[in-house]
């Protein structure tokens, strides 16, 4: 059974490129353009093996999503944040995420991070 990754990212082009790549790598991929879409998606789908979370997004940002997710599902699924901020590690700690990856990143680094953290 293929592992499932949920990508939450508001830049459509980045979102779909990541999706295409992870699909080639054999993952099943769920996508959401913001935290709110992701929460709705999780209601009706299986718990993914990893969530890739962008921070700055409209409607519901990364901070809000992490708070809502952890309140409802606790640490049922590891969260890796993607951020352009200088202090990515602090950001990850702030929202209780498992790991982080600094933007811009390349696909190999991303894959490595996913393999390290996925359930």
């Amino acid at each position, binding site marked *: 059974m293929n592992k499932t990754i949920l990508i939450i990212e*508001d*830049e459509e*082009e*980045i979102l*779909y*490129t*990541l999706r*295409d*790549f992870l699909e*080639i790598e054999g993952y099943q991929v769920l996508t959401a353009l913001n935290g709110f879409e992701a929460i709705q998606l999780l209601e009706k789908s299986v718990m993914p093996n990893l969530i890739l979370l962008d921070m*700055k*997004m*409209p*409607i519901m*940002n990364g901070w809000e999503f992490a708070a809502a997710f952890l309140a409802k599902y606790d640490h049922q699924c590891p969260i890796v944040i993607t951020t*352009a901020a200088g202090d990515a590690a602090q950001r990850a700690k702030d929202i209780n995420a498992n790991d982080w990856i600094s*933007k*811009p990143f*390349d*696909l190999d680094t991303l894959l490595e991070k996913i393999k390290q953290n996925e359930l």
Partner: protein
Amino acid sequence: MKLQKEFDHLFENFTTGVVFHDAQSQVIFANPEALRLLGLTIDQMLGKNATDPHWRFIREDESLMPLNEFPVNQVLASGKPIKNLVIGIIRSDLTRPVWAMCNAHPEFDQAENIYQVIVNFTDVTDRRNATDQLKSSLQFTKDLIGSMKEGFIVIDSQWIIQDVNPAFCLMTGFSHEELVGQKIPYPYWPAEEVDYLKGVCDAKVLKVRESLELIFMRKDGTRFPIIASPSLVKNAKGEIVSYISSITDISERKEAELKIKAALEESKSAAIIKSRFLDTAAHELRTPVSAFSLLLQLTQKKLEQGIAVEMPILIRMRKQVDRISDLVVELMDVSRLERGVLNLKLKKTDIASMIASCLDDFRLRAPKRPMHFIQPEHPIEITIDPLRINQVISNLIDNALKYSFEDTPIKVSITTTQTHLCVSVKDQGHGITEEKQKDLFAPFSRGSDDLTDKSGGLGLGLFISREIITLHGGTMGVRSTIGEGSTFYFELPLDKK
């Protein structure tokens, strides 16, 4: 005889000149000090009278003294003594007069007739010279203060104005008469500063050479800042007799300071705007660059794994490169505008068909959006830079599409007057508040700058557009109503026939 000898000895050593005259005013005795003062020998004096033309006396004011004013003649005429008369003695051997304080009194015989007059002289030349010097130095000081550009004021210990110089009068608009005798703080002291002045005095802050920055009031009620540098004048007992202060009008300096401050603030805020703009520019560029990079990596992965690379992925890459190149063009335009080196390539152009073809491009990109334009029957020829005006029209249509609802129409129209043509682009979007309308055309601003604004761009489009229109000698503006939509328009002068 012994007594006569002692008298002679006394007179000889007197530091006062003594001359005895008989009733005919002839000299019958003169002691050595008198001879010294008058510069004559005893032979030259004895037997001469005061009407002798060798005598030349001057009055205290240096005018020639007439014979009847000579001490001996006055005493002989009036029979009364004279006291402390200052006389100048003109001597042929000296260039400057010798000054003497003179006393004279008559001696009467038993028949009460004057039989002699005794005149004594005390040398006061040194004292007189010192007084002259003091007077001339006082006059010098007065002239100096009078000619100074700085104001000058003298106040006594009761705070009554004793004197002011012309510069002070000029500065305040009050005359010398209006000021002298007035009690400080009035009349040139603004009411709101009185407490401050009292505080200063009570606290005895008014020390020598301590400058105070104060506000003075002119006669016309206007105010101006000054610097006062007061000094205290004390008497021998150490009591304050008066305050002397120079007053410098510092309005010009204050104005210059304010200008410098404002310029500094402006450059600071300009620097902040620039740095924020650079941040935005970097952010805007990063997204398409990183999307493009990811797409390239994905293509590489596919090729490595023998997966077919389809057309859509190339189109997606092209789209990201276009985004990057649009941003770069925008940045270059702004840079050229700021340096004033954006040159127009003018050409006679039919602006109506230009608008029509511009709209056709947009219809291809957004086929679902209704776009209306009634093209005039005849071409409207005007001399413009066609690429730049096309850029403006595209910018306005693009904005209208971005900032209005998906199914609402865009209406483009063109009207002409005798001298101008007007192109307007109307949308049915949210509308723009009046406050934000002001900032719309400023560089580096965007109508909405929160994160939900996914329109992208640097917020430079309208700034560039308006600059282009201005370069064409035209104007650009906006009319907007909240909830109804906005109309952006520009006017260009028609070619002269």
